[in-house]
């Protein structure tokens, strides 16, 4: 017997008991829709964390100046400038796992353009900074090495600064003054958005580290020598973060001539770790959501099995007759299996539509980020089909094992 005929018989049988078929499908519909919505919500939460990681830049390790102990009172982090520009260059040069290390000197001040001004933070840094933070320049250009070496009077500005000072006009090649030092804007950075603390990362001015040290910071204690506030390090993709961290520590201790047993005079912070922990917890949450939703799909499958068993009993005489006119056991098996799979696949299809609609509605109404993935839809559809086969098999086998003579005589 060919498949088209089997499918036609299955559809007819389902049509005869419309309400029952619809109610049986409902279990699968709800299950599939729940799985899709829950996976979309879970993925949405995960994507938000991933976005934060991306905006920070991935595989980032920060090196901060250590604390100073004077007269038994220990100062906070950065109270003593211990790390230097040269530490950054040494990290870059000597540790294979490191893709780039950028020193930075932080300061704040008023940026003045004609008769408007804007208060912001600025960083003196090296060209590696943009690499470390995965931060492209969307207009103009980045720093050149000559500008770093020669304390060039140039600056890159973030989107927020650009908007507040220049509005719609192109800032490139315009001159602004920071702490009375005129700097030519050579480029505008791409939008980064908020960091995980809610700070606006686009409210920023970048300049060569030498410029900051010699021209802008002026009397700050960082201006002396080659000290920097922090070094931002990007570890190569796929490299072992912990190993990189250990080697960095070792190198810095060596450079700072620290004896064994002496405390580090710097701090190493792995920023990605915090976010990765968040990501892991949101992954667990989405897995949990999907698991709960799968339970309802399973219950839907049991509903199918239940109804198929009832149907086999009700149609015992029909099965007997089909056998009498020549249906083989496997024809009967196929017929009931196709019926169960048809139920679950139609239910699955409706469930997918509802699930996609539900995920969109949640995004719209609850303002949650949801992310529909093709793979979750394929998974749900496959799962629905598998449930039809799994839960349909037992009743179908029961039907196919009936003896024709007993089935015919069944009252």
């Amino acid at each position, binding site marked *: *017997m060919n498949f088209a005929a089997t499918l036609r018989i299955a559809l*007819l049988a389902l049509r005869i008991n419309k309400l029952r078929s619809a109610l049986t499908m409902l279990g699968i519909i709800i299950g599939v829709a729940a799985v899709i919505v829950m996976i979309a919500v879970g993925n949405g939460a995960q994507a938000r964390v991933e976005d934060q990681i991306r905006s920070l830049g991935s595989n980032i390790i920060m090196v901060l100046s250590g604390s100073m102990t004077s007269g038994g009172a220990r100062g906070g982090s950065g109270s003593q400038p211990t790390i230097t520009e040269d530490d950054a260059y040494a990290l870059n040069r000597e540790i294979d796992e490191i893709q780039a290390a950028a020193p930075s000197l932080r300061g704040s001040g008023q940026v003045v353009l004609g008769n408007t001004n804007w208060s912001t933070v600025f960083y003196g840094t090296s060209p590696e900074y943009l690499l470390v933070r995965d931060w492209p320049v969307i207009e103009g250009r980045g720093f050149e090495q000559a500008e770093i070496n020669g304390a060039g009077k140039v600056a890159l500005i973030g989107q927020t600064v650009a908007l507040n000072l220049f509005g719609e006009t192109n800032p490139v090649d315009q001159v602004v003054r920071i702490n009375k030092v005129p700097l030519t804007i050579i480029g505008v950075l791409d939008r980064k958005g908020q960091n995980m603390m809610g700070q606006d990362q686009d409210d920023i001015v970048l300049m060569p580290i030498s410029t900051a040290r010699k021209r802008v910071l002026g009397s700050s204690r960082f201006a002396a020598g080659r000290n920097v506030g922090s070094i931002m390090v990007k570890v190569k993709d796929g490299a072992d973060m912990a190993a990189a961290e250990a080697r960095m520590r070792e190198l810095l201790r060596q450079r700072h001539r620290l004896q064994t047993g002496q405390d580090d005079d710097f701090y190493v912070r792995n920023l990605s770790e915090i976010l990765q922990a968040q990501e892991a917890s949101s992954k667990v949450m989405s897995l949990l959501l999907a698991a709960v939703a799968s339970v309802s799909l399973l219950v839907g499958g049991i509903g199918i099995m239940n109804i198929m068993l009832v149907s086999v009993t009700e149609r015992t*005489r029909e099965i007997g007759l089909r056998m*009498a006119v020549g*249906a*083989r056991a496997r024809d009967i098996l196929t017929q009931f299996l196709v019926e169960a799979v048809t139920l679950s696949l139609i239910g699955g299809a409706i469930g997918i539509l509802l699930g996609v609609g539900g995920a969109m509605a949640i995004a719209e109404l609850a303002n949650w980020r949801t992310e529909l993935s093709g793979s979750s839809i394929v998974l749900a559809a496959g799962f629905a089909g598998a449930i039809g086969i799994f839960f349909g098999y037992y009743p179908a086998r029961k039907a196919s094992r009936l003896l*024709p003579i007993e089935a015919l005589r069944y009252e």
Partner: protein
Amino acid sequence: MSEPLIRVEGLTKDYVMGSNVVPALRGVTLDIAAGEFVAVMGPSGSGKSTFMNLLGCLDHPSAGSYWFGGQEVSALSGDELAAVRNRKLGFVFQHFNLLARTSALDNVALPLLYGNVPASERYPRAERRLSQIGLADRIDHHPAQLSGGQQQRVAIARALVNDPQLVLADEPTGALDSRTSVEIMALLQQLNREGITIVLVTHEHDIANFAGRIISFRDGKVVEDRANEAKDAAAAL
């Protein structure tokens, strides 16, 4: 002498009910030639229905042999028996056993579906059989929209659609009034005249009288096997 269509030898069937073994058929031996119209009679429990089920390849005998058209069918597997039923046998039941909410045409075409006959051939053949029994104008009707006699005629069309060598009719008039019963018998007689072998189970003498040979069962054995001068059902109407 030509090979008989049916030959059974020592056909035995026991039913196991709990710890009891109930013998339903105790060694039946007989031949039925092609083209015969045989009525099988007997009170309930005589074994006539069991005999019928074995002839119809619906059940396996406990012992004995059954040759159908020269082929030993008592040794065949379930699927092979299904194939024999599909190609060589036609069934008519007391309660018609038509599929509910399914058109007369689809009901008649059902055996062809399991015989893998393509749809383009299935429906013309089913339609031809329905017109042959005078129901050409009812092909789209569902069983519930037909009278008992019409339903039984649809069932007969279904039994004939695969051009069987043998039609087995199990109390085909049991659920019909007497006039309709005679109509159905007239139809069966007509088919028999066209060359189809018919074995009919009944407990009514009036119905058995339309057959050319009457075999009587009692306690699982044949007690009488005689030729009968068949009454013409068409004339009796």
